[in-house]
């Protein structure tokens, strides 16, 4: 079958990579085991040897490997990031996913043959911004931040000189990616600076007479009553008081799922669909990949008659944050 949209799946480990490839990913994306990527969590990601094994496995089964170097090097750490670019080039990855303009310039000059993608962390939300990267560095694809409505995505696709990739399923960033400092405001570490949002070292759970508290560097992010399911304490999904009312003032725990919009995404010419979740288990990755593969194939084969199957929705919801999903900004009512 001719896939009009590539399915791009997360590989936080070799088993997750295999699960993605075995269940129908067209490409996997991975990062090195340090702060050069935005999922810098203990136990995740690849050293050079693991990356080689992963690339070999993916290639032998017809899948591509993309490498994410999507955090922002500062002057003191700059050489670590350029070494990572050089290592990725030497490994022969199919594309580098970069966020920092300076690093982009380095990669384009040093490795002109290497295909470059603009990471969602690059925070480009308009075709003007995307075309800037195209003109300057010859990027071939841009991953869109989760802030645009469907018509806005369409306008970007129509006016960009590069392929457009959008998020299809997974944890939902509520803020425009690459320019959210909520985590560093509270903990000192942000996705941009340390590759981590709400780093584990700042998280503290405790049982109190009022319920189960979760704090981030001392800030009370949420308080759960007995029986309430508790999520990972990202600031944007906590409960706070605004004008006296206690609520999820920013967003409730939920996952993005574009299942309902797949035919439209096919129609407007989106080139790739990304599954979030390099921090997730191989089982999660395998299952989400399997469902999205089936759904994408159905949407590409017959977009006019596509409707999400009940079992797909149920399977994805089971794996979603808060067991529920949203179209996020793609749907204006969410905004």
């Amino acid at each position: 079958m001719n896939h009009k949209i590539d399915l791009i799946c997360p590989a936080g480990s070799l088993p997750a990579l295999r699960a993605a490839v075995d269940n129908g990913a067209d490409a996997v994306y991975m990062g090195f085991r340090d702060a050069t990527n935005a999922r810098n969590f203990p136990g995740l990601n690849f050293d050079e040897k693991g990356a080689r094994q992963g690339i070999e496995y993916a290639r032998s089964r017809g899948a591509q490997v993309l490498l994410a170097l999507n955090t922002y090097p500062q002057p003191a750490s700059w050489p670590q990031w350029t070494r990572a670019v050089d290592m990725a080039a030497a490994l022969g990855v199919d594309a580098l996913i970069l966020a920092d303009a300076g690093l982009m310039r380095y990669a384009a000059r040093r490795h002109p043959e290497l295909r470059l993608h603009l990471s969602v962390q690059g925070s480009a939300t308009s075709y003007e911004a995307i075309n800037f990267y195209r003109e300057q560095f010859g990027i071939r694809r841009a991953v869109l931040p989760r802030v645009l409505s469907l018509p806005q995505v369409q306008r970007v696709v129509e006016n960009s000189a590069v392929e457009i990739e959008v998020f299809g399923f997974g944890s939902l960033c509520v803020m425009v990616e690459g320019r959210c400092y909520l985590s560093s405001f509270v903990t000192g570490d942000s996705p941009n600076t340390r590759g981590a949002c709400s780093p584990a070292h700042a998280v503290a759970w405790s049982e109190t007479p009022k319920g189960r508290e979760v704090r981030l560097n001392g800030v009370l992010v949420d308080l759960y009553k007995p029986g309430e399911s508790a999520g990972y304490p990202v600031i944007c999904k906590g409960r706070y008081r605004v004008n006296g009312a206690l609520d999820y003032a920013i967003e409730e725990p939920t996952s993005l799922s574009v299942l309902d919009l797949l035919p439209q995404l096919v129609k407007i010419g989106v080139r790739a669909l990304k599954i979030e979740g390099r921090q997730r288990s191989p089982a999660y990755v395998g299952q989400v990949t399997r469902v999205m593969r089936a759904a994408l194939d159905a949407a590409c084969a017959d977009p006019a008659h596509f409707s999400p199957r009940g079992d797909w929705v149920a399977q994805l919801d089971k794996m979603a944050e808060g067991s529920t999903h949203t179209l996020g900004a793609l749907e204006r009512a969410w905004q």
Partner: protein
Amino acid sequence: MKLALGPLLYFWPREQVFDFYRAAAHWPVATVYLGEVVCGKRRTMTPEAWLEIADLLAAAGKEVVLSTMALVEAESELLTQRRLAEVGRYPLEANDWGAVKLAAGRPFVAGPHLNLYNGETLALLAELGARRFVLPVELSAETLAQLQAERPAGMEAELFAWGRLPLAFSARCFTARAHHLPKDDCQFRCADYPDGLLLESQEGHPFLAMNGIQTQSAQSANLIHALPQMAQLGVDRVRLSPQSRGMEQVVNGFAEVLAGADPAAVDARLQRLAPAGTCNGYWWGQAGMDWQPPADLHGPR
């Protein structure tokens, strides 16, 4: 080192905006940034109205810069940017890379919402025409010192030194959400909160401030104690972010310290002007919300 008035981040009535800048024409600020940075739906101040204020301030001897939106989503927002660029009388502060593309070739300011974390990015911006950069608010004095060491010739540095910190932008309007309204029918509720809508933790601690689609810190950044160190690091502009009350006193306070007054004495007055306390953690390479008492300040670690 001179003072700069950052762009107005809130949605004030048109007359209040004009009054604010008519007053600012007499304040000791060298530079004034103008324009809507946060939300494209706020249209009571048209580009023409901003230009009227720009001309007024330029006539008063101020350097005027036109700031572009941080988060660009709609075609209408691109049109506004192009219009500001076509005016040509005033340089742009580019707050995303689309605006850099538009501004390139003429002198411009690389705004605080551009991701500028290293010397290579700084060099790129300099080649494109940037003559000043505003450090991203999450970066520290130590990183600034390193950037300054690599700073291209002809490039100035500016630092966000007073006001609620711009921390994030979203497609969603949180002020409208607090009023159970969708953004498309927001009824401009952000106009009710001239310094943002306070968000408190469940324990009642001021935490964040919602300003439409923008999330700010509840605490105001306050780097008055760091001014001597900023001078040593070669900072050229000190950005003070507008607030609805006491802005003239804030500006005068910073001006007094630049002229040699004791920061501690001035700070005692400034503390009362912050809507919910002050913070300076980012400057010291810590959590942004932290407040380091002046006694502990001995330069970057």
